[in-house]
């Protein structure tokens, strides 16, 4: 009996791993095709949909600014409070600016931005494409000899890889301002000195590593959102399910990608 259970467990584990790998494969295929239509096909006479990409960039990027600003401002403030708790004991309150600036631009700026974008846009991609799938609009594109990846996914892909780094820079800045609110009111900083201390504590590599991560997050979020949309079958209920899956899988994969890239930067000695 015990061996049977063990066998069952192993076979289920195997099936789970196989499914997971197949999913990653599908994501990679979709991501590669989107990248092909964005970077290669325009030089082979297949026009890039700049207009569509611009409106996506507006939706993904510009419209996310208010909520992202608020969240990252708070995060900056929280980081300042948390680090001051320990640094204050050591009498090193002047290091608060450094702690906030580093953790924002290396980690929390890109991550929080990605999570906000998953909630706003990753889910919207899955819902939009999923609805088009169940109303046969994706089939209609195919039958009209229009590649859905070229028509729908590539503009989103381009918008995401451009806007996510931009949003991340904005998020880093807002986080530093959030920290500055604490620095100015509770520690002996002036706004100018706080900003200067933040800038002094950052190396270019701190910002660049965050931006590289944010581009990878953009690729991940687009691929998951669009893949979930494209693999929707059935009706409206399934669209909801795809949307939920897109959000959950995106958050998981973004954190996984974050870990991989943070480890790479660490072992490259960039850390």
């Amino acid at each position, binding site marked *: 009996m015990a061996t049977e259970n063990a066998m069952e467990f192993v076979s289920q584990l195997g099936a789970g791993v196989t499914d997971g790998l197949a999913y990653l494969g599908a994501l990679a295929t979709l991501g590669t095709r989107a990248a092909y239509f964005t970077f290669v096909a325009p030089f082979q006479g297949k026009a890039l949909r700049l207009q569509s990409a611009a409106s996506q960039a507006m939706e993904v990027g510009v419209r996310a600014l208010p909520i992202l600003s608020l969240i990252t401002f708070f995060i900056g403030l929280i980081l300042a409070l948390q680090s001051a708790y320990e640094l204050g004991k050591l009498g090193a309150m002047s290091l608060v600016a450094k702690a906030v600036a580093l953790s924002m631009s290396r980690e929390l700026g890109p991550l929080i931005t990605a999570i906000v974008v998953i909630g706003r846009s990753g889910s919207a991609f899955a819902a939009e494409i999923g609805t088009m799938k169940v*109303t*046969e*609009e994706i*089939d*209609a594109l195919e*039958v*009209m*000899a*229009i590649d859905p990846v070229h028509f729908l996914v590539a503009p989103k892909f381009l918008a995401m890889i451009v806007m996510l780094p931009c949003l991340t820079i904005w998020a880093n800045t807002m986080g530093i301002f959030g920290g500055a609110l604490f620095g100015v009111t509770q520690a002996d900083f002036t706004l100018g000195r706080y900003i200067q201390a933040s800038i002094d504590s950052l190396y270019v590599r701190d910002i660049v590593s965050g931006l590289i991560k944010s581009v990878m997050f953009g690729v991940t979020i687009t691929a998951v959102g669009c893949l979930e949309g494209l693999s929707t079958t059935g009706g409206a209920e399934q669209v909801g399910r795809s949307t939920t899956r897109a959000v959950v899988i995106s958050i998981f994969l973004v954190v996984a990608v974050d870990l991989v890239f943070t480890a790479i930067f660490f072992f490259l000695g960039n850390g």
Partner: protein
Amino acid sequence: MREANPVISLRDLRVSYGEIEILHGIHFDVKAGETLVILGGSGSGKSTLLRTLVGLEKPSSGQIWINGQDIAAISHEELYEIRKKTGMSFQGSALFGSMTVGENVALPLREHTKLEDSTIEIMLRLKLEQVGLAGFEYHMPSQLSGGMKKRAAVARALAMDPEILFFDEPSAGLDPIIAAGIDQLILELKKAFHMTIIVVTHELASAFLIADRMVLIDKGNVVAIGTTEEMRASAQPRVRQFLDRVPEPDVEGELDYLQTLTEQYRRHA
């Protein structure tokens, strides 16, 4: 008319979803310029057949020759070239909800031709006029009634002046008068353009009105094929049952179907 050369030839076409075979060796020809109606009940495989004909489903074996090319064996690019010369009107019309009716019709022209905007404008008006929707180019699909959506979808299918036109359940979900209007539209297109038209439906009245020839599909097999007169005169029991609208003598068939579904579900779970 190239009577001798069929536009579409199906050779022992088999299609499966997973392990379940839906079409068990379909075999027939479609002549140039004729209107062929594919008849069949729910779950007969007629929609799958249509989806396979336009390349949305891959056959598990067999050949689909369209204009001398086997679409089951060609590359994606070659399939796209064939698709530019075919049009399809979907059951739910499948208009893009984010675009106006005009933009919907113009989309294939903008994608596949280098025509100037002013020319495209004229062409889309012409297409909308052909389907009786003149003046509706700035409406959104959501503002149209069911019948108008169908017509707009036909206009979009006509945009590239296709040689072959496919219709999936053209009268589904429409009241009898509007449905008759769509039948009339198909007849007009047939007269005006001599296109090869393939219609999938279970509406008998509509089928007999528009068809030159008919194919009856049942449980994934071709049961009968012939002109409307031949079908009417057929003594084949399954044809008679379908045409005379005789219900299944028992529900065994449906129980079988349920069982297949349950097995399918179990396999997926």
